C-alpha cells in the first residue's frame, strides 16, 4: 500500500518530511519539559564558593558591645555580644572581697531575688556549679578553669553540647541585625536567664483575625 496516497495531492509534502517534522516536534516538547527551571536544591548544591559577606558595603557597625569568640565557626572567627555590662552588680568582687558587711545590708547584698530553676530534671544546680568559688568575677567549668562572663557559651556548652554545636553553626540562637558583614551572634545569656533558662509563659504580642 502506498502511504503517500493518504496525503492529499495538493499538499505537496512527502510522508518522510512529515515524519521528520513529528520527530522534531517530539524532541522539542520533551526537551522543554526536561528543561524546566532547575530546582533550587540543584543550585544550592552547585554553590560551593564562599560568599564574602564582609564585602556587603551597606553593613553598619553595631551599636552593641561585642567580643571575639574563643571558638571557631564554619567561617572561622566570629563575635558574640558582650555580657558583663548587663550584669547589675558586676564586678562581683566589689562585694565578694572578704571584708565584713553590716547585717542590716544583708537583704540588699545577698542574692535573694535569684531563684534557680535550672537542671530541675536532676537534682538542680547550685551557685558554685557555674560560678567560681574563690574568684567571683569569673565562672568556672568542670575542669576548674576560669571562664569570663562574656564567654559563657564555654560553660553552657559542657552540658548543652548539642545546642552549642547548633549555635556555632547557626541553627540555634541568632545573628545580630545583619545577615551580612562580620558574624555577630547573641550570647547564651542574652536570651536565656542562666538561673531559669526556660522562657516564661506569657501572652503573645498580638493576635490574628480569622483568615479570609
Amino acid at each position, binding site marked *: 500500500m502506498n502511504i503517500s496516497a493518504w496525503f492529499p495531492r495538493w499538499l505537496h509534502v512527502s510522508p518522510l518530511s512529515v515524519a521528520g517534522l513529528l520527530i522534531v516536534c517530539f524532541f522539542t516538547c520533551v526537551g522543554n519539559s526536561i528543561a524546566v527551571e532547575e530546582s533550587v*536544591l540543584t543550585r544550592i548544591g552547585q554553590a560551593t564558593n564562599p560568599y564574602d559577606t564582609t564585602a556587603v558595603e551597606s553593613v553598619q557597625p553595631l551599636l552593641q558591645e561585642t567580643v571575639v569568640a574563643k571558638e571557631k565557626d564554619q567561617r572561622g572567627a566570629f563575635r558574640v555580644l558582650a555580657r558583663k555590662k548587663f550584669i547589675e552588680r558586676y564586678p562581683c568582687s566589689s562585694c565578694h572581697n572578704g571584708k565584713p558587711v553590716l547585717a542590716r545590708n544583708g537583704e540588699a547584698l545577698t542574692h535573694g531575688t535569684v531563684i534557680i530553676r535550672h537542671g530541675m530534671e536532676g537534682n538542680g544546680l547550685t551557685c558554685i556549679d557555674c560560678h567560681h568559688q574563690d574568684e567571683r568575677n569569673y565562672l568556672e567549668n568542670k575542669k576548674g578553669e576560669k571562664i569570663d562572663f562574656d564567654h559563657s557559651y564555654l560553660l553552657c556548652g559542657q552540658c548543652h553540647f548539642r545546642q552549642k554545636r547548633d549555635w556555632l553553626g547557626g541553627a540555634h540562637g541568632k545573628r545580630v541585625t545583619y545577615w551580612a558583614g562580620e558574624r555577630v551572634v547573641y550570647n547564651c545569656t542574652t536570651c536565656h536567664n542562666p538561673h531559669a533558662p526556660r522562657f516564661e509563659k506569657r501572652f503573645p504580642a498580638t493576635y490574628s483575625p480569622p483568615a479570609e
Partner: protein
Amino acid sequence: MIKPKKDDEAAELEISPSAHNSRRNFLKGLSIAAAACSASLVTGCLPDVKAESGEKFALQWKEYFKKHYRLMTQQEKEETVARLERLAKLQSGLDLQISTRAPRENVLYGYAFNITRCEGFMECVAACVKENNLDRKTKTQYIRVFEMKPGQLDPSTGDGKYFHEVPVDNKFYMATQCFHCENAPCTKACPTKATWREPDGIVVVDYDWCIGCRYCQAACPYFGRRFNWGKPSIPKEEVNRKQHYLGNRIRPMGKMEKCTFCIQRTREGKLPACVEACPTGSRVFGNLLDPDSEIRFVLKNKKVFRMKEDLGTDPKFWYFID
C-alpha cells in the same frame, strides 16, 4: 519641573466649537476636551482639581504613565522614586526614603523555621506589621502562627486564632508566610506580569502595575498573599519611612501585597524584621549560595522539610526540628 497648570486645565475644558465652525476645529476641540477629562478621571481628582496643587496633579499625571519596574532604566527608577517621595510629602507630610536597591550578585535568600523552638509569642507578626506598613484597620498580617498538636503537620488544621498564655504544654507552633517559591505559581497566574521573582529569589509585586484581579491569591497554595480592600490606614507616627519600591512602600487601594523578606532590609544586608524580632531564635535567614551561611548549616545538619513540596513549587522556606 512642570509648572502648575491650573489655568490650562480650565481653558481646555472651555474649548468648544468656536468661531470657525469647521469640522476640523470641532474635532480638535473635542479631542483636547476628551484628553483633559480622561486625565482628571484617571487621577481620580475631578471634583477637586482646582483645590489640588498643580504640582501634585502634575506628579500624579506623570506617575500614571510610568513603565513597569522591570522595564525602567535606573534614571527612570530614580525619577519615579523622587515623584513618590514628593507626593508623600505633599499628601501627608511624610519624609520617605524609597530605595530601588538592585539584587546582589551570588545571593539567593532562603529561610528556615525551627518548629521545635517556636513558642508562639508572635513577636514576629507584630514586628512585620510595623516594618512593612501593613493596614491596621483590617489587621493585615503576612505571617500567621498556628498552634498545633503533636503529629499535626498541616497548618490549615492548626489553630491560627489563639490568644492565651503561650507556650501551651504539648503543643507546638508553626508559622507560615510567603515562601518565595523558585517555581512560583502566583507569578504565572498574573495577567499583567505585575509579580515576578527577582534574581535574588524574592517574589515581588509592582504595586503600580497590579490590577487587583487576585488571580495570584487563588494560585498560591500557601495563602501567602494579601489584598488591600481599602486604603491602608497607618498612624502617621508609626509609618516606616525607610521603604523600597518593591517592598514596604504604602500600597494603594485594590492592590495585592505579600511578604518580601523585608526587601528594604535584606538588600541592605540586614535580617528581615521577623528574624530580628524573634525572641526564641526559631528563624534563620541567609544566603543559600554561601556554603558557610547559617541557612546552609541548617539544610546540611538538620531534619528539614518544605510545605507541600509535592506541588513542585520549590519554596525557599524550610521547616526544621532540633
